């Protein structure tokens, strides 16, 4: 029993050391990685025929054959992903809705350039946020949507003048 506890304690020590090197990783990613590693260790023990009653020496040998805890920190997959793409998309589509509302509600009252200015300012902001979050797939989508809509509106304006 004591040996089991020693073996379990050594595994937990290794997992805690890995977790300590993953401080910047998102919680969910860290949790899943630690579960995967814990399973891996028990599967490795089972492959050695020591699954039922792991001895500290077995655990030590398995852990010694694994990567050191700090090596997980070097993996880019465990770093927080760039965010901002969703915001860019929200700003882009939000200002389209806002500009359309101003245009429709203010027909005949407000000058045409006001909704146009709201639209262009919103798309410029969305483009800036989207480019900053280019690594995020949503950032790329926002840039494409904003650029596409701006080009369309500018073309309509050119042909209607």
């Amino acid at each position: 029993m004591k040996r089991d506890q020693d073996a379990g304690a050594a595994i937990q020590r290794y997992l805690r050391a890995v977790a300590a090197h993953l401080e910047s990783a998102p919680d969910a990613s860290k949790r899943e990685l630690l579960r995967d590693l814990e399973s891996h260790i028990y599967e490795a023990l089972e492959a050695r025929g020591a699954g039922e009653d792991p001895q500290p020496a077995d655990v030590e040998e398995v852990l010694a054959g694994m990567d050191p805890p700090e090596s997980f920190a070097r993996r880019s997959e465990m770093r927080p992903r760039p965010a901002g793409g969703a915001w860019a998309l929200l700003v882009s589509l939000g200002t389209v809705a806002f500009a359309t509302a101003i245009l429709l509600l203010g027909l005949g009252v407000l000058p045409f350039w006001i909704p146009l200015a709201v639209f262009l300012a919103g798309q410029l902001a969305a483009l800036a946020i989207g480019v900053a979050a280019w690594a995020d797939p949503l950032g790329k989508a926002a840039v494409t949507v904003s650029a596409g809509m701006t080009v369309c509106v500018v073309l309509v304006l050119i042909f209607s003048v």
Partner: protein
Amino acid sequence: MRSWVTQIRKGLLDFCVLNAIHARETYGYELVQHLRAVEQLSVTESTVYPILNRLREDGYVKVRLSPSSSGPPRRYFCLTALGRHRLREMNAYWDGLGEAIAGLRASARKESQT
């Protein structure tokens, strides 16, 4: 040469992990051993598990838990429908690339002989 190999390997790891899982549902330790057998990939736990984690977050891989007689539940990895679709695209691209490179090398050999 080393940096070229590192770049190639980095680009191929997702592809290799997806193919290894596609062959059959597999658990982590088995997957690492399977990929370790490919010497040119030189993978370890700190390579495979973070990649698996990302593939799972992207919806290409899912985990099935199965009770184990010792320790925590065994975690089996398999591809989702999205993962299978992605792998089909990757395999098609790889096949096309392989043929194109073989063609380039064949014509280079022919020219060097003449």
